[in-house]
């Protein structure tokens, strides 16, 4: 059975990757995951400098999902390069760095620092709902999305994936804009903006009031968007949002994704990626599919 797929010239030994922010840089997962078996590790968002993130509570439970308002806490690109890249390079997998920023300049600063780093791909996060000072604006306005993509492409040495926000009227329009801006691939979806209220305390559960919704609850929205975008652009798509099982992953690929990312499922079971990979292989076997690429986009 052939599981290898290719995104923008980068070969993944299989389509299973980790969604940014739900796998750190992998350290916490090593006891449960054979990192060598992952198609790629997409690391947590990295900014030009250390970001503290938002105050706690940062997590709220919702039916079939969770809200987070972590706010991209990260130690900054220098610390990341010093500590996380050497750790990940011990494994036979691809490294995708998720880029966080509030301005085009900040994005570019991170990407420039990564020019000579030993990483395989970049994922530009223009869609984090948890950072107030811009960042999110790039994800909802096609012109801004195109601009950010174009500027980052100028300095990027590695292929560039742009991660799209689902909190828009027309995600196809944004996908086309980043395609024009020169993106090599798109990934979707980031989290939906949501809220929970503690009725007894009469206030939002999250200190930040609103947060990003993820988990199986969002899967139908994610799958619909992946389907629409894959039909509309010529770029490869990394599909994610609520993937819990191998069959979920297969559905995303049939909708048009070339690879998938596992997010919240990692938090609920650190071994989720391994189980999902096993289940995908079992599905292919049962259905006599020899090459996973044969199912990409088969749904009309």
């Amino acid at each position: 059975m052939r599981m290898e797929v290719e995104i923008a010239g980068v070969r993944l030994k299989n389509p299973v990757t980790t969604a940014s922010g739900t796998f750190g840089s992998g350290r916490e997962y090593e006891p449960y995951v054979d990192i060598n078996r992952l198609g790629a590790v997409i690391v947590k968002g990295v900014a030009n400098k250390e970001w503290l993130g938002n105050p706690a509570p940062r997590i709220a439970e919702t039916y079939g999902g969770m809200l987070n308002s972590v706010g991209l806490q990260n130690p900054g690109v220098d610390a990341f390069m010093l500590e996380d890249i050497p750790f990940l390079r011990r494994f036979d997998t691809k490294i995708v760095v998720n880029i966080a920023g509030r301005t085009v300049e900040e994005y570019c600063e991170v990407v420039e620092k990564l020019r000579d780093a030993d990483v395989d791909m970049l994922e530009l996060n223009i869609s984090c709902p948890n950072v107030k000072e811009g960042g999110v604006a790039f994800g909802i306005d096609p012109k801004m999305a195109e601009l950010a993509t174009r500027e980052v492409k100028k300095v990027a040495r590695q292929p560039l994936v742009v991660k799209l926000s689902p909190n828009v009227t027309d995600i196809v329009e944004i996908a086309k804009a980043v395609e024009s801006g020169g993106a090599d691939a798109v990934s979707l979806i980031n989290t939906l903006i949501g809220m929970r209220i503690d009725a007894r305390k009469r206030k939002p559960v999250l200190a930040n009031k609103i947060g990003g919704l993820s988990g199986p609850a969002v899967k139908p929205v994610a799958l619909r968007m992946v389907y629409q975008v894959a039909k509309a652009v010529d770029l490869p798509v990394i599909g994610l949002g609520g993937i819990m099982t191998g069959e979920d992953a297969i559905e995303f690929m049939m909708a048009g994704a070339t690879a998938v990312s596992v997010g919240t499922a990692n938090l609920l079971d650190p071994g989720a990626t391994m189980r999902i990979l096993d289940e995908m292989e079992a599905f292919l076997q049962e259905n006599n599919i020899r090459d996973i690429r044969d199912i990409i986009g088969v749904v009309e």
Partner: protein
Amino acid sequence: MCHEKNARIPCTIMKHKALAEGVYELVLEAPGIVGEAKAGQFVNLYCKTGGKLLPRPISICETDREEGLLRLVYAVVGSGTREISGYPEGDQIEVMGPLGNGYTLDQGARHVLVGGGVGTPPLVELAKRLSGEKVIYLGFRTQPYLVESLREYGPVHVATDDGSQGHKGTVLELMEEHQVTGGMLYACGPTPMLRAVQAYALAKGIPSQLSLEERMGCGFGGCVGCVCKVRAEGGEGFAYKKVCKDGPVFDGKEVLLT
């Protein structure tokens, strides 16, 4: 397959009964977990229904290594603990752990243990493992529990908000009254109590270890959801640390309880 370890282990419920109004004792068959467990660590419990996907972190109250039994004590406060309280003996529940750092066992001669409400359970395993003299202070809203379990290890002083048992008032008032002191102060309980304990320890010049609570997404360091503030290394400002991984037990001199 090379992934060696399953994280979520289905465990059989050996005993499940109410200790006080809305407070339950849950004994699980969990030899793998109790084999590794330290006092002050916790486990994740997972619900089965109602779309509740996140873990319920519960402190390890006591372990029985010979029998492979894990004792937990929890209060029903929301939909998750309400659901769990309905699981019958013989049923199974998924458990992950042990998680977190646990208390560092001080080698000194006298230990002060302070628990507030459902912060009391981890003191049982802690008292069991500490050598030396122990004195225990417990605060409850109303009905106390685990007092007998703890009396095995040292004198227990109880305060209740409504005066239904022991001192009427806070556990801190009791500690101040006794001018209690020792080589290390270990505490677990609600944040206002921890804040008072922290201040007391600083005032008396006693080192302290405080066990914190925060809402968790994973419980094992994966999501950076469960942070608390600690003094920044330089001294200016603060840094966030993960309660689940860097804690739940923090040095009273470092942690900022805002």
